[in-house]
């Protein structure tokens, strides 16, 4: 009798999946608490600080809140309205959650483990579920597009005006912002010469220059676009409460709503991971983590800690921005994507391509260190020129409010003296 034994690599992958999914779900639950805390602190309130360890009086600053929140929403009635398309309605939350979790197969969550010397397991073991995946970035982007599909399905299958509008807005927004997102990404891929996210981190660690410094314009464009992709304020039009009730998840309740909300937080975590990995050096920190592939256990944990701290900082920034900036109007959103972010992304791409192309000549002409300085200075010059140009031209500042040639004073004049001389008053 020959039993099928999974290979050690499979077991290692399963262990990593278990750790990652468990970690992500816990992180999403605690990010809800963090979001509520930050919302409260920004508004001079105290925030949730009551729930501690269940059945005791210990409060722990409210760290038990995620448990209470989770229990509450799971135990709530899962109501399905009669007018929905049952199959798609039930499929949508699963699609979006599966897609947002599967993204993490290609995202490294640390550096590498020190050699374990287990026969059959290639050393060193990377903090990555699918280490052999050569198209990591493409995988991430393909799956984040599938997640949009879940939003659309949810909005459409709900057979509800608000849900439909939310899904519609979401599709237009995500299609528009995937282009600047891709352009920001292309610059990084050009500079690093690889589509693997761990290779991109290693390239930044080797050179010591994070891509946020080498490609400021790309960083800006990517950052703005990932806010839009994660549908966070100021780009949260798909679920603008004031206009659309709940947007695409208006008709959802109970555990299905929970799946939507968790995957929204997973989107934010993904965006923070991508920003940190591609632009903020990943696990690298000068003089602390080292840059090589040989690490001790302490070093591996330190790199994991540095990466997590950076990701947490980016997420806190996401949450602070939520309370700093009002939501864009839909036409402003679109013109920001197509008229500002797209040209800026192209400018960044051209600059990076030129710098990478002429780097050997620069090194030959100026020497290694001056060439690096020039390679950093040129994108910064482009950044300032592009920024000021977009400010002067204000393509996103279009004001399409009606131009009133017929003010309150004219109306008063008409009321007092009959029709005024403005025969065409009220037209633009």
């Amino acid at each position, binding site marked *: 009798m020959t039993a099928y034994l999974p290979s050690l690599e499979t077991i290692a992958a399963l262990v990593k999946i278990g750790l990652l999914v468990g970690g992500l779900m816990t992180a999403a639950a605690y990010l809800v608490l963090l979001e509520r805390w930050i919302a409260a602190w920004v508004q*001079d309130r105290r925030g949730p600080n009551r729930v501690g360890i269940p059945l005791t009086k210990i409060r722990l600053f409210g760290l038990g809140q995620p448990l209470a929140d989770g229990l509450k929403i799971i135990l709530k009635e899962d109501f399905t309205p009669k007018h929905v398309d049952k199959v798609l309605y039930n499929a949508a939350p699963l699609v979006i959650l599966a897609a947002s979790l599967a993204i993490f197969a290609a995202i490294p969550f640390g550096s590498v483990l020190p050699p374990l010397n287990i026969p059959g397991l290639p050393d060193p073991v990377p903090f990555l579920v699918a280490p052999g995946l050569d198209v990591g970035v493409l995988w991430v982007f393909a799956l984040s597009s599938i997640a949009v599909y879940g939003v659309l399905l949810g909005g459409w299958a709900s057979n509800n005006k608000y849900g439909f509008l939310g899904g519609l807005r979401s599709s237009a927004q995500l299609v528009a912002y995937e282009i600047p997102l891709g352009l920001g990404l292309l610059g990084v891929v050009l500079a690093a010469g690889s589509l693997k996210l761990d290779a991109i981190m290693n390239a930044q660690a080797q050179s010591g220059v994070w891509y946020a410094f080498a490609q400021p314009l790309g960083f800006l464009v990517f950052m703005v676009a990932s806010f839009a992709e994660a549908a966070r304020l100021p780009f949260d039009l798909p679920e603008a409460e004031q206009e659309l009730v709940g947007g695409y998840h208006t008709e959802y309740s109970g555990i299905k709503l929970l799946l939507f909300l968790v995957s929204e937080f997973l989107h934010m975590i993904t965006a923070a991971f991508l920003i940190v990995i591609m632009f903020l050096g990943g696990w690298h920190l000068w003089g602390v983590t080292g840059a090589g592939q040989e690490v001790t256990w302490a070093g591996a944990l330190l790199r994991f800690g540095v990466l997590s701290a950076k990701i947490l900082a980016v997420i806190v920034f996401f949450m*602070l921005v939520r309370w700093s900036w009002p939501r864009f109007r839909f036409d402003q959103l679109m013109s920001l994507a197509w008229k500002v972010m797209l040209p800026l992304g192209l400018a960044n791409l051209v600059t990076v391509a030129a710098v990478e192309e002429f780097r050997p000549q620069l090194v030959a002409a100026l020497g290694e260190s001056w060439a690096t300085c020039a390679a950093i200075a040129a994108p910064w010059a482009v950044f300032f020129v592009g920024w000021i140009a977009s400010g002067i031209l204000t393509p996103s500042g279009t004001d399409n409010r009606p131009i009133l040639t017929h003010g309150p004073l004219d109306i008063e004049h008409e009321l007092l003296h009959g029709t005024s001389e403005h025969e065409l008053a009220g037209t633009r």
Partner: protein
Amino acid sequence: MKPSDPGITWLEEKPLGLTERLYLPLFLQGLTTTARHMVSPKVTVNFPEQRPAVGNPLIYRGVHRLNRDDEGRVKCVACFLCATACPAHCIDIVATESPWPDREKYPESFQIDELRCIFCGMCEEACPVDAIELTSLLDLTGKSREEMIFDKEKLLSVYDMTKDAEPMKSASLGGTL
């Protein structure tokens, strides 16, 4: 008011300057405000342990009380002015002949439905003898609707409970005693 009224100043929205059109400076300004508020002192309190500060107890409108006079009798003369003034119709008085020589009537029963009350303070305004007053007690709770209908004894006990912390308002506000 007409649009051409001299009291109205019509303003045009100012065009954006370059700093505003560059967007990021304004964004940083907003972010600074947000960050400053995040660490600034909180305005809310941890309620059951800490009590919120009541501004001026003389003008605060909390739970009602029925004042007693110097001899410990209820001051109310059952004139029904408070019940008439009450917009929520939450005051129910049963008057009877007074056993004391200084007034004709006194309330045999005096009930306030605290759940119906809107805490507008009209009863307090209307009372000619300053018998009904609103205290600064703000956490009014109960386990049933019946419990929230305060009768005369309950209202008098509110006075006994609060008289030291909050003397009768009429004297400090220059009213009758």
